[in-house]
């Protein structure tokens, strides 16, 4: 009977969470559909498109492109001109590096020009696209896949991601408001928090997690130390900081902090893989010798080292592809293009790789320490 009631409550709890999810889902879409009033910038929804003319463009490097001008009629969705019609002109290229073709239904941020006297037609210029809807679609696709496949673990993964993102945002606010504290100090504190939160959320409170947390922190700080030493020894030859975009702060610090945080996830992954598989072996056979554990641990480490370093490599390098092509198409020489666009990304990938590889023995020995402590207690 008791079993039945617990089953029932579990089921009703499930139903409740499905309903909650559905409500969240629908209301979020309704929100981005009707949130025009919340925006200060005027938004216009395209209702009619007419192509004016197209001309072929050949630039000084013989790249051919098609430039098209289109006339748009749109309805203003908010502000003092709400529901009025506005006429806009857009020029777009077929490559679309900094422009795009607009279609009926697109929502655009516009700047409305005051109509001249005697002119009734409202005109303006296009500033940007309203993208919140698409962001929401992708976010929900992500949440649903994670929940469908991962169930409870998927839910915890989402929670840990959100908590980490909020934490990072607060840490940056804190850094920007108190200019006295070094960015790397703030990053170090955040990293300790990130590690503890993510690993505890994903794996729960147990010895495996504690071993992984210690191994992660040792691995990350050691790899940072190595990277810092290398940069100091080579006086940073070969790093092209010109390429860092969006810089409002000392670039070297921002680069190091980014490198620090960037490799953390991969190092955590290695640390938890090592500790949970070694603990798994120990739990299966309590009398297993340290030597056998060490050997199996090293084998596991060898297996994950290659693919883990590749994850970071691709995550970092791929973002540079459009910029590389822009450089090449503007007749920049190969060596210059690569060193300008890839030096920092490659440095990040290599430093992250060092962190991953170094965490394998660290994770192994820390876990052995925990295993032996458990042995002594029994």
């Amino acid at each position, binding site marked *: 009977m008791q079993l039945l009631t617990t089953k029932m409550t579990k089921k009703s709890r499930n139903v409740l969470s499905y309903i909650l999810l559905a409500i969240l889902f629908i209301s979020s879409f309704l929100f981005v559909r009707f949130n025009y009033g919340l925006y200060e910038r005027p938004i216009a929804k395209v209702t009619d498109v007419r192509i004016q003319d197209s001309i072929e463009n050949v630039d000084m490097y013989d790249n051919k492109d098609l430039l098209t001008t289109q006339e748009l009629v749109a309805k203003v969705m908010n502000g003092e001109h709400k529901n009025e019609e506005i006429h806009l002109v857009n020029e777009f290229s077929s490559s679309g590096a900094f422009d795009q073709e607009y279609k009926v239904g697109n929502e655009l941020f516009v700047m409305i020009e005051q109509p001249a006297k005697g002119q009734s037609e409202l005109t303006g210029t296009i500033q940007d696209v309203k993208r919140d809807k698409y962001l929401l679609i992708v976010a929900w696709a992500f949440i649903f896949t994670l929940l469908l496949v*991962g169930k409870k673990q998927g839910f915890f993964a989402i929670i840990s991601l959100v908590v980490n993102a909020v934490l990072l945002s607060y840490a940056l606010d804190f850094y920007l408001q108190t200019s006295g504290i070094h960015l790397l100090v703030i990053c170090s504190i955040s990293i300790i928090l990130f590690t503890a939160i993510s690993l505890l959320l994903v794996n729960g409170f147990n010895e495996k997690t504690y071993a992984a947390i210690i191994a992660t922190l040792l691995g990350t700080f050691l790899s940072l130390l190595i990277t810092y030493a290398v940069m100091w020894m080579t006086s940073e030859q070969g790093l092209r900081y010109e390429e860092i975009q969006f810089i409002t702060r000392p670039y070297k610090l*921002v680069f190091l902090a980014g490198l620090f*945080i960037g490799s953390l996830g991969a190092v955590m992954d290695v640390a938890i893989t090592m500790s949970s598989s070694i603990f798994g072996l120990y739990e299966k056979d309590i009398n297993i010798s340290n030597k056998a554990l060490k050997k199996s641990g090293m084998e596991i480490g060898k297996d994950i080292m290659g693919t883990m370093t590749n994850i970071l490599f691709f995550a970092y390098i791929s973002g540079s592809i*459009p910029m590389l092509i822009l450089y090449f198409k503007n007749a920049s020489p190969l060596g210059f293009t690569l060193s300008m666009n890839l030096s920092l990304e490659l440095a990040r990938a290599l430093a992250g*790789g060092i962190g991953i590889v170094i965490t394998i023995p660290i994770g192994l020995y820390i876990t052995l320490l925990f295993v032996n402590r458990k042995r002594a207690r029994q």
Partner: protein
Amino acid sequence: MNVLVLLGIILFLLMIVIGGKKGARSFFALFLNFVVVLLAVLFMNDPSLNPIVITVIACTIISCINLFYINEINIKTKTAFVSTLITIVILLVFIVVITEQAMIQGFGEEEIEELGIFSLYIGIDFVKLATAVIIMSTIGAITDAAIAISSPMYEAFCHHPNISRKDLFKFGISIGRDILGTSANTLFFAFFGSYLALLIWFKDLSYSIEEIVNSKIFSAEMITILCAGTGVTLIIPITAWISAFYFVKIRDKKVPQP
């Protein structure tokens, strides 16, 4: 000496000391992957070739390197390979639609000032390039998850040769759930790290939430992160199903069921 060379040497030495022969192979695979990406970029410079097709070919070669070269050719890596390709194709369809609708291709207004000396009308479709970038940034994580699931599934299959297809599939999913959190984390922190400069920029110039959410750069990066996360999740059921299907099929072939 150059920072990159010295970091490369240290990584190489560490990989050999800790990983032995397999470590050396892993390092060489990293190098090969770099060459593949570079070649893909060079091919993308040709306006008559479709960047997405180039990316799919490059991803196929990369998964061959990651699965068959670092490990070896066996049933585990074969099923991981097939699952990777299927996941990439599914993910691709989703990403093509989203990048086209959300107009996140090319460069944002924050970047455009620095690019003043460049001609932007280069005749290469930046929408397709944006798709290529997102797919390429996940390929490492996807192959990693695929092999991380198919390999223990094979172990379980060897220990319990009479396991049913359904149970084997369930086992694969449970392995997947265990690695889900950490592989999502790996990607997220990698992206957080590389977008740190951007986040500080937004805060320093006190962008409002609505400006951040709708700006091309931020939405492009969020979409990349979320698509990458969806990719590493999607590979779990796909690998579990394909591995269960193949392993059981091979067993049934060997021992004809009465």
